[in-house]
């Protein structure tokens, strides 16, 4: 699976890394039990600080998407991913709020907004079937 970083972006690199790995899992390219590169190797290949990679892995671990083993390093969680609980729904709403607001300002109707979401769902699922 490819992970792509935009180095000029305002989005912090560790966030881009977290997103890249989550997208890989959503597409089904990363399956439970799959090993991720070691912190050192990934930092070397990306040419970024090891702390940055470590931070991304720690965040993913906290959220329950990956586990860290002493021997195998970081592994995609085999004990099932966390569900969309109340806390997540609250966060989702908070993150969507400005997007919906801007969409309304730009006169994008509700249906078009939902279409974009559906297309994204289909994209991730479609590639997961391979």
């Amino acid at each position: 699976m490819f992970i792509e970083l935009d180095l000029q972006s305002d989005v912090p690199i560790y966030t881009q890394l977290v997103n890249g790995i989550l997208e890989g899992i959503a597409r089904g390219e990363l399956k439970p039990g799959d090993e991720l590169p070691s912190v050192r190797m990934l930092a070397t290949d990306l040419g970024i600080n090891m702390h940055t990679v470590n931070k991304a892995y720690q965040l993913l671990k906290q959220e329950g998407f990956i586990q860290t083993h002493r021997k195998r390093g970081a592994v995609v969680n085999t004990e099932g991913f966390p569900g969309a609980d109340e806390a997540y729904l609250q966060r989702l709403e908070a993150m969507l709020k400005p997007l919906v607001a801007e969409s309304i300002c730009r006169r994008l109707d509700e249906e078009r907004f939902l279409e974009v979401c559906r297309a994204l769902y289909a994209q991730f699922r479609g590639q997961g079937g391979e």
Partner: protein
Amino acid sequence: MNQELFIAMLIETLTMVPVVVLLASIPYLTRRTESFGVSIPKEVYADEELVQMRKQFVRRFAGGSAVLLVAGLLLMTWLARRVPVGEGLQGAMLTALPLLVLALHFGLYLHYHFRMKRLKAERQWQTGYVEKVVVDTRFREQPLRYSNFWLLPSIFVMLLTVGMTVIFWDRIPEKVPMQYNFSGQVTNWADKSWGTMSLFPLFQLGIICLMGFVNWTIGLAKQQLDPDDPETSRSRNVIFRRRWSAFLIWNTLLITLLFFYAQLTFIVAVPGFVTAIISSLFAAVVLVWTLALSFRTGQGGSRVRVKAQDGERLMNRDDDRYWKLGQFYFNPDDPALFLEKRFGIGFTLNFARPAAWLFLLLILGLPLGILMVSLLIG
């Protein structure tokens, strides 16, 4: 003696030809995302001005080298007629010529490097491009190099060399030839001792260790994919690494065999011309192989034909500021120790890491270490 010097110069000039060809071609062997040590979007590689610069570089370097080599030969012919030339001067002249060619190469490179930098600042190629870094999380799950177990045949040859020396110890004469000149006459003798006899096996051991280490770094070096077309550049990169790994392993065997032969000449008297033929053949094979591999593979596999895809307007991370003079990588924030050279073929070091200097010391210290050990045994 004077005749001798002329022949030596002639042979050296001939062996310099493939080296000059390789050095002249470097602008064509690098990745398309670089030009004279300056990073560029790969579409710009075909820009008319850059095309002209590459052609000019080849013409100037090839021309300059030809002038140097011919001038060297002429100087030798002239000297050979007039002055008696001693061993020391002979050695100095043989070393000076390749050094002059290398200096010319670096000087010309610098000229075009700075010209490229000005051009880049003027033309603002980067605008409209998004700089990206792409990695494949499974890159290292595939074999990137051949195992160091393939060095076992070379180790076997080394043991054979040692065994042969011990078994036929009595047949080795009290004085052994250590150095030949180009007409096959001995110029340097050494007394037979465990020290002198262990020199070649120690060289074999040193080469095996060094090549094993370099082969190991091939698997370790930074993954450098083209964000515009990660799939293609990944395939290319893997091919590049595997071919050079195979090259290292085969060459280790060739070198250990050459030292085996050299040790054999202590035990069995071999006519000088046989030795001359064998060592020239060895040099020819290694040079041709290096040339063929460089041209067929290119830096990072840039010349390997893989089905290309159309990409978006993406370019590599612009890391010019970390490349001092476009050639020396110094980036304290990059944990990578080994990465691809920019203007050349193969790998270089991140000099911001102390381990890089340690590595350099190790390589430079190896021949010295071998001589020390050989003296200690003797």
